[in-house]
């Protein structure tokens, strides 16, 4: 049988990205264009061993293309990809030794669960006894031990997802790539699987590079994440840092609800600045970069940082309640505060009715330290 003949480069297979490597991935100046369109533009990132790293962005932001370049399915136009210190940029995918979970699972319909999970081991000519042990181990890890003889069509979406994960980790890769693995699952199941994937990642100490367009998913799981837009990384860092201190308006808006009040810089102080809004109010906020007076800017503040009532210390705005949305765990109130200013306030549902009624005159306030000047 031809399938038993060893093929070229087989001895190298276990080396790159296998348990021998630490799992550090370096992307340096990665570029990819399709025709005129730059899909990925000079991506640079150093992913640490054992890190859960997400590429987060809207569709068409280049995150999947970036992942496919790491996996070896897409050839970069420029730049290098390294695992530890080994340049794998031009290595074919089957020699990179990376685990991979595909968007639609890509479970072989003609093989049962056991054989699906055994596939990477068979590709590596692992002896039968060892193979059985490792497959059982991987199936136990994703709690599918009892389903070894089933076929994909006999499994639920969540179970298929687990097969895909078991298959990606069965040969003990130090790096696993995941391309929107939970996209096809419903919301509750998705959260459960997030927790489960994160647990497996931590238990095995593997590096995970995770592509998603779901902000909550990325924030829930990631040690660090890169926000992508138009083929570039807009910002990279731990979820909390990016959420509270976005580098620009795009990141602020993409990572959840954001108030962005536009105006011009009126005064620049030490780590702080004053913004004059278009309708003539002045608001104070943190400033993390250099700015000049008169420069157009926006004040960024998250809706949950706002409170009703007056506060002499911080910023405050007066207005009327324009819209109220009950969202279960919170109430979202939109307030008209002047001709060009609209702010959103999120109040947690603590059983007090969720704040003022529609049309009521209100004052909202927030500490200056919770808002940030964004220069775009």
């Amino acid at each position, binding site marked *: 049988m031809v*399938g038993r003949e060893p*093929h*070229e480069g087989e001895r190298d297979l276990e080396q790159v990205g296998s348990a021998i490597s630490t799992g550090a991935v370096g992307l340096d100046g990665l570029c990819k264009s399709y025709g005129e369109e730059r899909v990925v533009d000079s991506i640079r990132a150093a992913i640490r061993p054992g890190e859960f790293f997400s590429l987060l962005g809207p569709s068409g932001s280049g995150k999947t293309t970036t992942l496919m370049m790491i*996996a070896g399915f897409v050839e970069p136009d420029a730049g290098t990809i390294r695992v530890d210190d080994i340049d794998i940029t031009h290595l074919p995918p089957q020699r990179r030794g990376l685990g991979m979970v*595909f968007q639609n699972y*890509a479970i072989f319909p003609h093989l049962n669960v056991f054989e699906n999970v055994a596939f990477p081991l*068979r*590709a590596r000519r692992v002896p039968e006894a060892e193979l059985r042990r490792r497959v059982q181990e991987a199936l136990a890890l994703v709690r599918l031990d009892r389903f070894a003889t089933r076929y994909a069509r006999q499994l639920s979406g969540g179970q298929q997802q687990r097969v895909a994960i078991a298959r990606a980790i069965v040969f003990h890769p130090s790096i696993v790539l995941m391309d929107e693995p939970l996209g096809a699952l419903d919301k509750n199941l998705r959260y459960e699987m997030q927790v489960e994937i994160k647990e497996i990642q931590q238990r095995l100490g593997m590096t995970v590079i995770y592509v998603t367009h779901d902000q909550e998913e990325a924030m829930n799981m990631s040690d660090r994440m890169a926000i992508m837009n138009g083929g570039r990384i807009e910002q990279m860092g731990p979820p909390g840092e990016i959420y509270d201190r976005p580098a620009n308006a795009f990141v602020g808006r993409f990572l959840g609800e954001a108030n962005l009040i536009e105006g011009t810089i009126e005064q620049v102080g030490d780590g702080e600045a004053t913004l004059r809004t278009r309708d003539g109010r002045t608001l104070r906020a943190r400033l993390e970069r250099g700015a000049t007076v008169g420069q157009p800017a926006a004040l960024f503040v998250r809706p949950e940082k706002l409170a009703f009532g007056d506060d002499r210390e911080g910023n405050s705005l007066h207005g009327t309640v324009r819209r109220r949305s009950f969202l279960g765990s919170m109430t979202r109130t939109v307030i008209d505060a002047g001709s060009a200013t609209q702010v959103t306030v999120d109040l947690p549902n603590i059983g007090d009715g969720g704040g003022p009624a529609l049309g009521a005159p209100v004052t909202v306030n927030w500490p200056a330290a919770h808002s940030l000047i964004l220069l775009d």
Partner: protein
Amino acid sequence: MPNRGFLLMLPAFAMLALVFLAPLAWFFTQTLVLDNDLSTLWSKIVAVVSSRATLQAIGATNWISLLVTVTVLLLGYPIAYYLANRRGLRFTLVVFCIVVPYFTSVIVRTYSWMVLLGRTGLINQLLLGTGIIDAPLPLIYNKTGIVIGMTYVLLPYMVLTLFAAMKSIDRNLLLAARGMGAGGAMIFWRVYLPLSLHGVISGALIVFILSIGFFITPALMGGPSDVMVAMLIERSVEITLDWPAAAVMSLLLLAVTLVLYAIYYRVTDVRRLMGAA
């Protein structure tokens, strides 16, 4: 009326009944039922089926059909694979080359082969002229000729069936296999071939079913000893005027075809169960 959709099918059914089922029934009753009681009918069937001519024809039919099916499969699989992975001009060109002969009459195509394959045909002249052979090769009026001719006629059925099967293979599965460390050979034997296998079986059955009923090509391109069942039936009707024998052999052919078709149907059904992915 609960469902009048069947009315749309009525003309086709009427046509089928009129030109296929009715003559068949008439032929079988005229030749087998009217002149015989049950015991003489049975002995007649046994006599026809066990006669030397029939057995030889059945043997030749099976052997030729098998050869043709295997040849068509071996030629068709790479072509279908090529087509399944190409787009644009090259795809159109190859499809054109495969499908256009479909629209040409079998007789015209068969005569073209006779021009090419004869003792003084183009191929033999070429081979003799270049000195590759000293004497003309017997390419026609034997089994070689039949297999060449039938393979050519039946290739499109195989290619199109395989193409459909291959197109339904999820490309992600092949990428996934590569990502998991599989080389080209392993991907083919463990993923691609098993996933296209229902196409192989369907295609082989279709070609075999069509082969066992072939008449024109073997009659024109075969030798005196290459008598297939369909030819024997024709001889019984036209030359020996033994209509009961023709009827028995026709029934036999029909029964075998229906059984094979039932298998074909099952295979395509299983494919649907697999979700074709």
